[in-house]
């Protein structure tokens, strides 16, 4: 039996449970708990005049009704601003329950606790909130006009404004470089809102036993929820445990914390002395969690006759919705990742993050990168079109060379560290994607087009993750790490790493994630970081344990540790398999005992004769047990990359858009499990196609979300997703021991850019807004027909 499982398509260890109904998702827990429901604002912007709960008091099974006024001072404070930034001069977060003013439809106003959810909703329906409607701010244009304010004390609705400049090597600014270029283009791009939309919404379940609080929540960060809950409720940290059970998808939205419900449900459980649970329903998820995308970009670019970019100047308007709990991470990522695999002469990027009376904007898979890549790849396509060059040729002319790594882009990335690419090979990747899609052999035809998109993705951001590995006296290996899982197969890939490092069959390894009872120090699952961060931490912890195992085994076998290896759970002398000792026995010997509980552990007791009477049973500097803990904290992010290409067909009459082929070349360094990486790519591409062709949040002028259901928000079914062809390139990261880069978000990042390029190629019409529906393409055709006689208006003379 091999234990060298790193790089193998090992079947997932979580599947048997999930395939037989044995998963334990949030709402599967807490049978018999009281249930909460919320009265949420029906207005986008209003002042609360009065809340009348009297009619609800007679509901059978009602337990409690809470408004903001009922909350203790500490609980009622505004939610934390998770990621402060000097440019976020006007950061604002919501109260757990609305205080005086509501700022988006869906904001929680009243919490009701009852015997079950049906009854809690009955009570909600009888609560009367008297609102004085205020004029809402909807859409970026209205927000920047600043005539109406989302927050009275935020002038112009601008929460943050940031300018970043990277001069050329000769010291020229981007604007100077553009002016001095032989060719310039200027244009505007628009990307609408979408959302993570996991099939399991959020949910919280809390139990309080008088001194200790245990909270289960469908989160991407249990350790940070724990700290936030302890702080809000005034509890000592060791008395709070938070567990992420099986989580039905996250895609970014569940990294936000603490949600109002993550504070209020535990608080109610403590106050009532009973278990309380809240499970988000789908409409609540649409109107009270978070959205993303949503940017307008104004672009100016200067380039030479070969398409080499001398200067790029991008001004971004970013719609942040009503609050900024996650800071300005999304526009920062857009600004910094916009440069992609290119060496841009000089770069200036400016963004304004503005408030609107809509659901808050926080990262959704890709986290600002799809907008960035849309901008840069549309720019490359426009340059090629202007110069009459092949689009891949223009890209190649701007690539960072394989011999230029580490490559410093001269900016500060989302981790506060320099934006330095660690490794990559973009020309090879371009060759691979061109071959995979058949770029050079593509026969242009009416209503058929081909598109390409390239991206670089900073993955595995710090500050750190940790791993704990324990081998018990039955020979089993227990691995834990603090970050959480939402379907990425961590139980499998982390076990593969441990099996490879320790020489133990995977069947004897179990992995626990996201449970603060097992591992208390962690950051969370976001930014395609789990494999890089926890994977390396677990490998390092395994190496510690291995070293200890070899040391103890060497004493028992009277051999040199350097002559020992571990295979199939046995430590043996290299070349002499008979001289061996099982890890189970090593684990026993590692823990000197006074009391035995079976034959094996009797070997570690005081009269067994296994320990030297001349030394203390636990040597100075040593610890009992065969276990180890280690952390991985990188100097900076590692940079994965990818290139996608697609062939689309548009219907000449209906303008329906069909993706005929979709190809992906992906480089995430060394692959731990290629089957799982492919699955991540497939899922990302599907979300990208949703974002390119179907998904958008439709707000009316009153701030009502008109399509807050799965009937109207069009997530792709199987019928909308083409077959995805994939190929891998592996340029290992020099930054971490395993040489890996992240893969989680990759698939979604360039899709809008690719599809826009392909539609443009099919139609000969510039595509500058995404998503694009058949009716929008139909309108663009009509417009283009009218404008056929006038020159394209986005080109400067």
């Amino acid at each position, binding site marked *: 039996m091999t234990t060298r499982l790193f790089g193998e398509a090992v*079947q*997932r260890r*979580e*599947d*048997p449970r*999930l*395939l*037989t*109904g*044995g*998963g*334990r*998702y949030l*709402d*599967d827990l807490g*049978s018999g708990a009281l249930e909460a429901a919320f009265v949420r604002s029906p207005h986008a912007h209003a002042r609360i005049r009065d809340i009348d709960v009297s009619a609800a008091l007679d509901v059978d099974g009602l337990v409690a009704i809470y408004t903001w006024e009922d909350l203790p001072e500490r609980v009622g404070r505004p939610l934390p601003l998770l990621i402060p930034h000097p440019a976020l001069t006007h950061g604002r977060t919501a109260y757990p329950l609305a205080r005086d003013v509501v700022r988006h439809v869906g904001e929680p106003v009243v919490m009701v606790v009852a015997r*079950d959810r*049906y009854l809690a909703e009955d009570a909600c329906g009888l609560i009367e909130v008297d609102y004085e409607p205020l004029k809402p701010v909807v859409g970026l244009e209205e927000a920047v006009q600043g005539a109406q304010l989302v927050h009275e004390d935020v002038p112009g609705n601008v929460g943050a404004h940031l300018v970043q400049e990277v001069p050329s090597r000769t010291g020229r600014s981007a604007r100077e470089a553009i002016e001095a270029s032989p060719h310039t283009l200027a244009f505007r791009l628009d990307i609408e809102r979408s959302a993570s*939309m*996991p*099939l*399991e919404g959020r949910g919280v379940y809390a139990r309080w036993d008088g001194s200790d609080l245990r909270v289960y929540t469908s989160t991407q960060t249990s350790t940070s929820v724990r700290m936030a809950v302890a702080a809000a409720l005034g509890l000592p940290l060791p008395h709070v445990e938070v567990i992420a059970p*099986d*989580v*039905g*998808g996250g*895609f970014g939205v569940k990294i936000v914390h603490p949600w109002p419900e993550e504070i209020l449900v535990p608080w109610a459980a403590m106050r009532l002395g009973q278990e309380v649970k809240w499970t988000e*329903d*789908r409409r609540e998820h649409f109107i009270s969690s978070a959205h993303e995308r949503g940017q307008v970009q104004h672009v100016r670019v200067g380039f030479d006759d070969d398409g080499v970019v001398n200067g790029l100047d991008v001004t971004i308007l970013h719609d942040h919705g009503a609050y900024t709990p996650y800071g300005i991470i999304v526009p920062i990522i857009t600004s910094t990742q916009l440069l992609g695999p290119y060496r841009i002469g000089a770069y200036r990027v400016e963004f304004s993050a503005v408030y609107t009376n809509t659901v808050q904007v926080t990262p959704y898979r890709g986290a600002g990168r799809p907008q960035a890549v849309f901008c840069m790849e549309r720019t490359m396509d426009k340059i090629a079109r202007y110069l009459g060059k092949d689009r891949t040729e223009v890209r190649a002319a701007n690539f960072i060379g394989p011999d230029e790594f580490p490559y410093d882009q001269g900016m500060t990335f989302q981790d506060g560290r320099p934006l330095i690419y660690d490794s990559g090979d973009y020309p090879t990747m371009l060759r691979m994607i061109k071959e995979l899609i058949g770029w050079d052999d593509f026969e242009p035809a009416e209503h058929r087009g081909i598109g390409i998109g390239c991206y670089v993705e900073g993955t595995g951001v710090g500050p750190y993750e940790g791993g704990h590995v324990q081998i018990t006296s039955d020979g089993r290996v227990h691995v834990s790490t603090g970050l959480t899982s*939402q*379907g*990425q*197969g961590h139980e499998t890939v982390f076990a593969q790493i441990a099996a490879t490092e320790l020489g133990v069959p995977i069947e004897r390894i179990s992995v626990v994630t996201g449970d603060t009872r097992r591992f208390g120090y962690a950051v969370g699952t976001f930014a395609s970081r789990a494999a890089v961060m926890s994977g390396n931490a677990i490998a390092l912890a395994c190496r510690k344990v291995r070293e200890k195992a070899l040391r103890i085994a060497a004493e028992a076998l009277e051999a040199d540790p350097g002559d020992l290896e571990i295979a199939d759970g046995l430590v043996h002398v290299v070349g002499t398999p008979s001289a061996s000792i099982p890890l189970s026995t090593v684990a026993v010997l590692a823990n000197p005992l006074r009391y035995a509980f079976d034959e094996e552990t009797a070997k570690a007791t005081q009269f067994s004769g296994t320990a030297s009477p001349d030394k203390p049973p636990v040597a100075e500097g040593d610890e009992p047990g065969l276990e180890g803990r280690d952390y991985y904290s990188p100097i900076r992010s590692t940079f994965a990359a990818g290139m996608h290409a697609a062939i689309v067909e548009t219907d000449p009459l209906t303008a329906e858009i069909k993706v005929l082929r979709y190809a992906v070349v992906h480089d995430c360094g060394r692959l731990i499990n290629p*089957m*799982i990486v*492919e*699955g991540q*790519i*497939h*899922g*990302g*591409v*599907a*979300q990208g196609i949703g974002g390119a062709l179907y998904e958008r949040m439709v707000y009316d002028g009153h701030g009502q979300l008109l399509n807050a*259901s*799965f*009937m109207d928000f069009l*997530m792709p*079914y*199987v*019928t909308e*997703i083409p*077959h*995805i062809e994939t190929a891998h390139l592996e340029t290992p990261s020099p930054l971490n021991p395993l040489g890996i880069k992240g893969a989680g978000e990759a*698939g979604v990042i360039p899709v809008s850019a690719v599809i826009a390029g392909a539609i443009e190629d099919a139609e000969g019409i510039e595509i500058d807004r995404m998503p694009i529906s058949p009716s929008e393409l139909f309108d663009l055709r009509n417009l283009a027909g009218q404008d056929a006689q006038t020159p394209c208006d986005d080109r400067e003379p």
Partner: protein
Amino acid sequence: MEHEITLVVNGAARRVRVPGRRLLSDCLRHDLGLTGTHVGCEHGVCGCCTVLLDGEPVRSCLTFAVTVDGHEITTVEGLAGPDGMSAVQRAFAECHGLQCGFCTPGFLCTVTALLRDNPAPTDEEVVEGISGNLCRCTGYQNIVKAVHRAAELIAEET
């Protein structure tokens, strides 16, 4: 007002008292403790809550429990046989047809009925057959593969 009903769930008769408005999904999950059936939208679009009612896939979130009094229901917990997971379940594992697993029970029930009625579906028939179930993780490619693989496994085993 509550009603006493009997559901034959995964082969066992279960008696339960439910209000008239109790959804079948809630009844299965919270009254009978069969939490394998999931609820993703509560308006019949996502298909997570799909169970087999007298062998046919239905949305349990759009069904009142009282309306299926006396009927047979199969949930994901009832798909495995005495020898372990069904061919459909094994094929999903083999082909990596699931990630977070939340939509999976609905797919499994749907596909179980699909392959019973059409043991050797074409690619088109597979796509049509699962076109009422949403998955946000997999991009469907491996689910389609798993359905074909399940058909193969069933053919090999019969």
